[in-house]
């Protein structure tokens, strides 16, 4: 058991998988010699050499396309797209190539690869370098979408993503890179599609992801301590596959659903969760399902503006209190 940062957990996970399987290769911009602009891949080049850890040109389409061609023919590439926002310049692979290949070829061709990127706000980077992009990528049948909120989940879920035979978007959160957490020694392997109940509760269910998990837990503690409201917090961890059973089970118990999302309001991942619950657990609900999100605005750069935009512990608390009339 050691304390590790979320950042170092990335390198450890990649190293674990590269050691296990020589078909695992890693490419991206500034990932090798420099160890990544977020320093999340330091040491990999030294350990595995330039044949397996590759600095690329600023050519995101070439990165994802090459990863796909390699994956189709036997390698297990991990591709880094530095900031999640840059997925937009190579979106064809996300939308049209990775997820459709297996289906269109009637199962002849698979695409076992992982795309890692750092998303999310809190760094005062402005509208083009701060986005949570779950709702850019989860609508494609065939593509999996994972987002870890802790160092141990980074390792376990990234390992699971690398071993998965489907293409996986692995969405890290920039503001969590410095976060520390306990991590067991030895190999760590988790399962995609499994949500985690981080805090059991009876009065309401919060479904959260990434950085919002931590704010949700803090909000739940505050709701308990200050208002006697007992909220269950679920770290959904993986949007595709989605652990619907866990979500529905919790709502069956609490009767109330809140999603906490970092993305702007319209068509965030929470809309899918709410829609599933509203359809399948309608009669379990004791009140409206509520989405707590960034408002429908691009993210501003200045710190006080950005802080106001992204859901805060206080906003989560206030929204839930108001909705529960607590």
């Amino acid at each position: 058991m050691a304390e590790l940062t979320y950042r170092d957990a990335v390198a450890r996970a990649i190293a674990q998988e590269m050691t296990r399987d020589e078909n695992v290769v890693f490419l991206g911009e500034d990932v090798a010699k420099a160890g990544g602009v977020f320093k999340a891949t330091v040491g990999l080049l030294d350990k595995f050499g330039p044949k397996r850890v590759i600095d690329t040109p600023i050519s995101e389409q070439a990165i994802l396309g090459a990863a796909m061609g390699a994956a189709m023919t036997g390698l297990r590439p991990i591709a880094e797209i530095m900031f999640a926002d840059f997925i937009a310049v190579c979106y064809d692979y996300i939308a049209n190539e990775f997820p459709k290949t297996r289906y269109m070829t009637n199962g002849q061709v698979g695409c076992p690869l992982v795309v890692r990127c750092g998303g999310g706000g809190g760094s005062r980077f402005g509208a083009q370098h701060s986005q949570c992009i779950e709702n850019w990528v989860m609508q494609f049948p065939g593509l999996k979408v994972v987002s870890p909120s802790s160092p141990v989940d980074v390792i376990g879920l990234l390992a699971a993503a690398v071993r998965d035979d489907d293409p996986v978007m692995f969405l890290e959160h920039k503001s969590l890179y410095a976060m520390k957490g306990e991590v067991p020694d030895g190999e760590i392997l988790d399962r995609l599609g499994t949500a985690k109940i981080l805090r059991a509760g009876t009065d309401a269910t919060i479904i959260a992801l990434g950085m919002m998990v931590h704010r949700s837990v803090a909000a739940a503690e505050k709701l308990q301590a200050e208002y006697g409201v007992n909220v269950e917090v679920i770290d959904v961890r993986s949007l595709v596959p989605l652990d619907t059973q866990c979500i529905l089970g919790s709502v069956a118990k609490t009767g109330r659903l809140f999603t906490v999302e970092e993305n702007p309001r319209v068509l965030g991942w929470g809309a899918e969760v709410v829609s599933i619950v509203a359809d399948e657990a309608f009669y379990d609900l004791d009140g409206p399902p509520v989405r707590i999100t960034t408002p429908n605005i691009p993210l501003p750069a200045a710190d006080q503006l950005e802080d106001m935009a992204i859901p805060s512990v206080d906003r989560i608390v206030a929204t839930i209190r108001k909705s529960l009339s607590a």
Partner: protein
Amino acid sequence: MVKWNISVARSFAGRAPVETINMAKMTPAAGKPGALPPNDDIGEAKRLELYRLQVLLREAEQRAFDLFLQNQIKGTSHLSLGQEAIAAGCAAAMQPGDLSFCTYRGHAHTLARGVPVEKVLGELMGRDNGLMRGKGGSMHLTSVEHGVMGSYAIIGAHIPIACGAAWRAQYKGASDVSVCFFGDGTTNIGAFHEGINYAAIHKLPVVFVCENNLYMEYTPIADVIPVKHPAADRASAYGLERILIDGNDADVVYRTMLKAYARARAGEGPSLIECLTYRHSGHSRADPAKYRPEGELEKWKQRDPIKIYRERLKSFDFPDETMAAIDAEIKKIIDDATTACQAAPTTSTDILFTDVYADGGWAWRN
């Protein structure tokens, strides 16, 4: 109007100057009239294979077209009528295990690798005997067992993908070459630039074949590029040699590819080869190709690759019966395939839900 003067790379491997030849003055058949079937670098067997392949592609696509007209094939399709020398020449120079990456205009390249006509027509007809049982359709023909790693319908996407397959070969020390086909118009999309650059810096064993048929869908390529040759005139931007060849002469294509593949296998890196050609039909099923200047098609039909090749064989003293026998064999293959497809059941709808994910199913949640 088409200009017949094109530059042809004389020496491939080195940096030798390119030679400008006048295609109009070329004898359609380059062999010496009256000579015996030559045992030159190509040889008799390969020549017959090249002829057979071209006829096969021509007749299979002609049949696909007829079936459209009879509404037995739905959706769209993009034929390579007139461009067969490229598909034939490229495939005939490949070795088993080499990989083809095709476009929506992929029937010819798929068939040229040995995929049965029945499987291709079946796919177009949405039958259960189709290559992908109807799930992919005309634009996505794929047959991994024949090295056809897919047909890609988004312009340029497969250029980086082919790089990736070549990267795997390099990484594993395998000797296969990835061959990536695309049109003139594809040279203007970002993925072209990113992919060719990427291949060049890693010296990947990939060969990029640009089939310059003078048109994108309906717009002439000359209208949208500031250079004359969309691929050849850009090769130097990637440190590559300028290679421009006559894409209607299967021997020229075959020879050029042999060298390019050898270069790739030897670790000397990618090649970008522009093949000058012309499509006889419209861009797709929907297109009567009225945008072409009068006489252009007729001029190119004089340089029909199959006509050229038949005359070449004749000039090498192959007897007419040899070609007639091949023609007959092909006709039978295609008739049989058509009959088989017509008899085949349409795909059962249970496959709608298979192979979305690697577990074989479509469940995305529990």
